[in-house]
């Protein structure tokens, strides 16, 4: 137990939760429920990964879900006015990247703190979105497009789930095996030392915000395809849940530490919790309460265990002195 990392403990908790829900929640293992969970998981986990990478640099991206919904709306408008799917996707991608660039310029080049920048851009993107859509939802896509959200590979694995797994692997590789990925962690733990060690921190930060907007774009494609419509508040419920998932997954909110697998575990835990509690007949809003309680409880446990360890090491020191 002692040699297990934070993430493995979370993984064990996930397995335990899954077993618990399978035993006690009626119909948890039914194919319809499992299918639902598999379809809901990708958009959430892709957004959470984007948030995690930003948090690694000691930042936060409050505009994340609004980038997603803005690019979703652009895709929807392009599709419903008859452009081909690749063209529409390209338009959505460009919009998302433009949003990411805006965040990146303010954070990386000007150096304003990320929470303020993304607070501003969040309101800005929401406003642009509202002025385009007037709050209405846009629908009417070709059925080929909806396959991204509802289709299966080989009639078994959802397309969106495959996209999610690919992105999880890509993010892991990017963070651990590339120069950029390592610099992301370094910027998060000590930006000044990183700068003095010869790394272009502002370029690294710029790519972080571009990366997160790219992920938001993918999530928006999956969401629009699944709902068959796009709307201004699409995915906005995920915003704070993404921060919660990253933190529960062991990512330090002050930056510098965090693992992809931890975030993925946390997202799965939230998904199982909300589906399972729903099946158990627990009110939807109690799930929010549970998420908050878990978030705070995990951090209290972290604190208590670090306090205990400190005390232990002091005792050991005292012993060795004696």
């Amino acid at each position, binding site marked *: 137990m002692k040699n297990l990392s934070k993430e493995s403990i979370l993984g064990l908790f996930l397995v335990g939760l899954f077993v618990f829900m399978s035993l006690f929640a009626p119909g948890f293992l039914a194919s319809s429920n499992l299918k639902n969970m598999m379809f809901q998981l990708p958009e959430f986990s892709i957004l959470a990964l984007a948030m995690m990478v930003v948090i690694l640099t000691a930042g*936060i991206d*409050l505009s994340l879900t609004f980038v997603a919904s803005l690019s979703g709306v652009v895709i929807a408008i392009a599709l419903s006015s008859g452009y081909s799917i690749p063209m529409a996707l390209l338009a959505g991608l460009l919009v998302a990247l433009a949003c990411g660039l805006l965040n990146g310029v*303010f954070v990386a080049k*000007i*150096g*304003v*703190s990320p*929470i*303020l*920048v993304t*607070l*501003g*851009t*969040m*309101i*800005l*993107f*929401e*406003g*642009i979105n*509202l*002025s385009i859509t*007037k*709050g209405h939802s846009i629908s009417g896509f070709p059925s080929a497009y909806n396959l991204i959200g509802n289709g299966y590979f080989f009639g078994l694995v959802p397309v969106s789930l495959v996209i999610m797994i690919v992105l999880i692997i890509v993010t892991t590789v990017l963070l651990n095996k590339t120069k950029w990925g390592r610099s992301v962690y370094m910027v998060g733990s000590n930006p000044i030392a990183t700068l003095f060690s010869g790394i272009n921190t502002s370029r690294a930060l710029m790519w972080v915000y571009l990366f997160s907007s790219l992920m938001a774009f993918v999530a928006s494609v999956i969401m629009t395809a699944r709902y068959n419509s796009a709307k201004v508040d699409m995915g906005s419920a995920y915003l*704070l849940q993404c*921060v*919660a998932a990253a*933190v529960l997954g062991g990512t330090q*909110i*002050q930056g510098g530490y965090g693992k992809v697998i931890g975030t993925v575990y946390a997202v799965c835990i939230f998904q199982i919790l909300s589906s399972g509690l729903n099946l158990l007949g627990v*009110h939807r*809003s*109690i*799930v*929010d*309460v*549970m*998420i*908050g*309680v878990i*978030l*705070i409880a995990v*951090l*209290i446990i972290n*604190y208590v265990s670090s306090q205990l360890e400190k005390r232990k090491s002091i005792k050991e020191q005292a012993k060795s002195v004696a």
Partner: protein
Amino acid sequence: MKAILKSKEMSIAAILILLCIILSYLSPAFFTFSNLTDVLKANAVLGILAIGMTLVIITGGIDVSVAAVTSAVAVITGHLMIYLPDSFLSLLVIFLVAPLCGIVFGLINGYLVAKVEIPAIVVTLGMMSIISGAILYLTNGVYVNSRNFPSIFIDFANAKILGISILVYIFFAVAALTWYVMKNTVIGRSVFAIGGNSKSAIRVGIDFKKVQMFVFAYMGFLAGIAAIVQTAYIKAIDPNGLIGFELIVIAAVVIGGANILGGRGTVFGTILGVILLGVMQNGLILAHIDTYWQKVVVGSIILLAVSYDHIQYKRAQSQLSNIKVEA
């Protein structure tokens, strides 16, 4: 004099005055007594919360649970009011219970931030999730109507002194109280000391944890008062009415010149930020600009304000380090 002119409050005030001149040119309805007091009345809740948030932000913290706490206190006092008799004492009870509830919520936040050392954004995020979930579960999102309130509360809500709503006076009383606390009490000065340089502040003997507890408790106290004002303003309890409001509060504080990394910020600046947001919203309506564009304008102003602020700050810092010593 030069220092006053160069201060950040002056530049916000200048923008505000410019905006007012443009608006009164565009719409004759803008520069009227009733419209201006309406702007103040409509933004009293925002103002009260923003003043509390200023203190939190000065110490380098943040509180995203304010809107949830305010709603929670409003729901609690609203349901209490149903049982209260129609007498002056009930008003007193409300004014005791609401701030107390707020302080309790604030102390929970403060305890977790100061003693358990969880980052403020995570604590308040979690609290927000818990509180708003609990409110929704308990109330089912159902309104409480003003018909259930004691009529003394309705009288209070409609009260006017010199033609100005009592809610505006509450807002200014809160501002005056906070200004006094920040200026003339030890704990108020400690707030600035912590924000300016927490390490040196701790070295000179300021109890960081105590200050953090105080700041969050004070935020809760103001959230309690804001809950009363909100209830009096809309004359109903809407459990969902303030969702997302915390970000507007933070925006007002930031526009008012407080630095999110701590250390800087004034009550006066925040009030200017609140009024700027309020006037802008009012002006866009009066100028017949589509309300959908409001958020675009607000978002752009936040971006401009924070980056202008940051560039100024960086310039000041680089001047600091370039002091040449004459031999």
